[in-house]
Every structure is written in C-alpha cells, then in structure tokens.
C-alpha cells in the first residue's frame, strides 16, 4: 500500500470515528478538528520499521521521565510518599503541585536514570503498594476537587513473588475502579512505555494522550513473541503485529490525542518536550474543567465501555 493510500484510509477511518457507536460519549465538539491536526502530525510512515523505532525511542535511556517533567512544569511540587499500609514504592511517584496556576494531583511511573536508581525504582515496575499510593492520592484529589494527571511509563507491573502475595491483580483493578469513580477532571499521558495492566491502572482518564514516540500495549513485544512465537527474539515481528505505536492507538480510538515531541524524539531535548507536554495537558484540562463532575464520570465510563471491536 502506498503512503498516499494509507493516508486516505486513515482519513476515512478518522472521519468515520465520530459515527461509530464504539466511540459514543467519547467524541466532544472540536474533536474532529483535533484529529485533523493529529493526522498531519502523523504523516510519517507506519511501516514495521517505524513501529519498532517507536519501541526503541519509548525505551530510550535518555528519555525524560515523570520527575524530569515535574521539575520543568509543576510549581510548588510536594511529593507524597507511601501507601499508609506497607511501603513507599519508588516506581510510582505521586504528589501535589501547581500546573498553570491550579493545584493538581500528579501520579507517574519513574524508571530511574542510573543503575542504582533503576534498581531502587524497579525500572518503573510498580508493586501493589505503588497503586495503593496512587489510590490514596486520587482520594485526596477527589475530596478537594484537584484534577488528576497521570504520566505513564512502565514496562508493566512488577512480576515478583512479593508483588503477587501483596495482591498485584487486585491493586491494578482497584486503581482503575477508583479512576472510574472520580468526579474531578482526569488526564493521562503515555510518556514512554505503556505496558499492560501496570499502565492502564493509572490511565482510566477523561483524556488519554500519548507522546508521538510512546507505545501502549497489552504485553511487551518480547513477552508476546515468547508466547505466540515461542521466541522472544521475534519481538520486532510481534510489535509489527500488535501495533503499539501512537498512530494505531489513535486510529483504534484508544487514545484521544497525540502529543508532539522535539525532532528525533523527546530524549534529544527535555525542555522542548516538556513545553509541548505541558501545553497539551493544560489544553486538555481547560476543555474538561467546565463540565460538572457527574457528567465527567458518566462520559468517562461511556468512553471506556465503548472500547473494542466485535461483531
């Protein structure tokens, strides 16, 4: 298929989105305009190579992490530690701060920059305690009417013995349930790897955004290849098959928008990446802030309940 054909196909699919019942409640006024803009941004090819490039950029060791963004656009940052039960999980950072003058509750995965920090933060793979902490902070946000921002960047929830014993599955389910109950505006952005349940646990938001080189997937390419191809070395093939890149996620109606990155990827210029992300988050919040809380919640649930393709 030529690039031109592909573009036409995507245009058709995008224009069809608003009519599909699967997106009921998800489309608001101005949405098609936004899609138009994003289409332009996404005119890069989506060959298997390009998908794999996204996977590599999403995992780039110099890519900005949650705290790099916090440092650049959250004022009066106060980090909140601990789930008040068992531990403080460094893989998931939470806190309060000001974004563009308003207090927000921020939740984000943090991978760690050097080897020691990566080990301390389990490479951004959270324990149930991390999701417990996220739930606690969401409850504060709900009580005081603070919008919730979440920045997703994890290969997945931590796959260890203690994590299982402490109830990893239940913690992820309850974190999603808490997000489905909130009556404050919620915006999530995948800023690197959106790996499986560990990612969606904090991404049940009114607006789900994705940076253009981020990935969002049901399993890591290596995990998928190990199961379906019986060989983790086939990760590239697996990624090409399940298409975790931003463009496909947008096409499938899974995300609401794509956030541009500096030329070559966010790792090249943290400041520029932060400016672009900040603008997108503020824009999304401004769109949501006038809607009554009950209505936000109703639309949020309707959006997620409309997801999927079946006959």
């Amino acid at each position: 298929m030529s690039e031109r054909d592909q573009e036409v196909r995507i245009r058709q699919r995008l224009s069809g989105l608003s009519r599909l019942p699967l997106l009921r409640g998800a489309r608001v006024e101005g949405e098609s305009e936004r899609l138009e803009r994003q289409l332009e941004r996404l005119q890069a090819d989506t060959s298997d190579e390009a998908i794999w490039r996204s996977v590599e950029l999403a995992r780039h060791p110099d890519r900005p992490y949650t705290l790099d963004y916090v440092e650049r656009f959250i004022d009066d940052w106060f980090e909140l530690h601990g789930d008040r039960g068992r531990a403080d999980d460094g893989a998931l950072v939470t806190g309060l701060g000001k974004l563009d003058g308003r207090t927000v509750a921020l939740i984000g995965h943090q991978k760690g920059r050097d080897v020691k920090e990566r080990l301390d933060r389990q490479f951004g793979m959270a324990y149930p305690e991390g999701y417990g902490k996220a739930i606690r902070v969401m409850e504060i946000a709900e009580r005081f009417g603070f919008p919730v921002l979440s920045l997703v960047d994890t290969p997945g929830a931590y796959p260890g013995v203690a994590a299982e014993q402490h109830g990893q599955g239940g913690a992820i389910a309850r974190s999603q349930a808490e997000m489905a109950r909130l009556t404050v505006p919620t915006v999530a952005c995948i800023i690197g790897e959106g790996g499986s349940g560990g990612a969606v646990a904090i991404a049940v938001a009114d607006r789900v955004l994705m940076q253009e080189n981020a990935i969002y997937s049901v399993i890591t390419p290596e995990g998928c290849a190990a199961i379906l191809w019986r060989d983790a070395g086939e990760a590239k093939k697996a990624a090409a098959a399940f298409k975790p890149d931003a463009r496909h996620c947008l096409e499938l109606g899974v995300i609401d928008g794509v956030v541009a990155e500096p030329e070559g990827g966010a790792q090249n210029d943290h400041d520029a990446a932060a400016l672009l992300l900040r603008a997108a988050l503020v824009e999304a919040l401004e769109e949501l802030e006038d809607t009554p809380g009950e209505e936000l919640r109703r639309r949020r649930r309707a959006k997620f309940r409309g997801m999927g393709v079946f006959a």
Partner: protein
Amino acid sequence: MSEARIDVQVEHRHAPPPAQTTHPNTCPKCGSHYRNDELAATLWVCGHCGHHFPMGARARIEWYTDAGSFVEEAADVRSEDPLDFFDLRPYAERLSEAELNTGLGEAALIGQATIDGHPVELSVMDFTFMGGSMGSAVGEKFSRACDSAVERGVPLVSVTSSGGARMQEGILSLMQLPKTVCAVEDLHDAYIPMITVMAHPTTAGVLASFASLGDVTIAEPGALIAFTGPRVVQQTTREKLPDDFGLAEQNLRFGHVDAIVPRAEQLEQITRLLRLFGAVA
C-alpha cells in the same frame, strides 16, 4: 541499537518448555484416569485426590442453575480481527478453530437464570476457548451481563477462568480491563451484589479487572490466581518460588479471596450468599 533498549524480559529469549502432554482426563496430581461420564458425575473433581479439573462453561451453568431456567444473552457477539493479526497462524483461523472445537461462540457465556429459585444474571468463562482470553467480545459480554443484572435488579454471579487479555487484539484487549471495571462500577452504583467464583486459572488481565471487584470472592481449590504466573516470575526475577505460589490457598492466606469452596459445596454456599444479599430490586 541494543544499548538503547531497557529490556527487562530478555530472559524470555529461550523457548518455554513444551506444554504437558498428558491426557486431559488424567489427574495431574495423582495420575488417576477417568472417562468423561465419570468426571461429569463428580462435577469434574478427581474422586481419588480431590483435584478440580477444568469445567466447561455449559456444564457449569447446567449444574448451577435450576433446570431449564437459563436463557442465554448476547449469544451472537463474536470477535473481530481489527489488527489483521498474524502470528504463526492468522487470528481469524484460531477463532474459527476454537469455535469448532468448543461449540462456543466466545470464551464467555452470559445469560439469566435462577439458582435455587433466586433470579440471577450469570457470566461464565470457558478456558477451552483460546485459554479463556479476554478480547473485545468477552469484555462486551461481561459488560452486558452487568447491564442486564442492573436492569432486572438481580445479583450477578461471575465465574472466571482465563489466561488474561487476548494478545491477538493488541491494545483493544487491554482496553477491556477499564471497560469491564467501568461496567462493575455501574453495577456497584446500582447496589447490585456481585459474587465471583475464581476457577483455575484466573490470571493477568482478568484478575487485574472485573474478577477482583466482586463483593464476595470464592476460589476453587488449587486454582492459580495470579497477575503474573509462576513461570514468568521465575524467569524474570529468578526468585525462589514458594510451593503454593499463586494458588488459591496462598491467596486466601494473604487476604485476596474470601473463601476456598470445593465444588461439592459450591452451590450450597452460592445459594446461601444469594439469601444473605436478599432480593435487591
């Protein structure tokens, strides 16, 4: 290139050991072998050691419900192949094969019925249909079961048995987690009780969504209930696993399920719970 990757799963590079090749009617615990009719007569429980064999969705519904009371809903919901997914074989082919082999349209069956006279909504998963994996169709069926329970004001009894999200539907299968969670939240808001029975195995995406949100959660003896299964935990972390890692018994000890109920007592306990929650409408 390779240094640009933070890959925590490189240890998966070696192919996993081949799946067990014993006959499905041979007890993996004690080696006793049964005919189909023998197993059917004992609710698919090994008469020698008490091992619970996997039980099909139709057999379970027939057992739980009052004769002739089950009316299936959303029977025509089928999976699509939105990604044109192709691994070693096309997804579409795997789907038709599963349908042929199991006689089921999808990995979940939903419908209305009565249990000992109590009207209920049922959602029952079947592991034999592509490992009970949850794609868009399963997510939709479970969500519709929630809606139907709310509409009729009856409790929802949900039986889970699943390997997790269905990879062949990519990100859309991951979205079935928040989808089913939102459906359960609508159920909770309507004060409709949800009783969950976790059968072997209840893992990954299904455990990390609706399966964990029941008001009362019952597990079957020996069922694997884990977000990450023992093989992946072992390969990824190289930790030494406890003997009962991820099993129902460990989950009870750590407080993740309310009770372990063998099949012989299950109907009685479910009926008791239905009495306790009472008529909701």
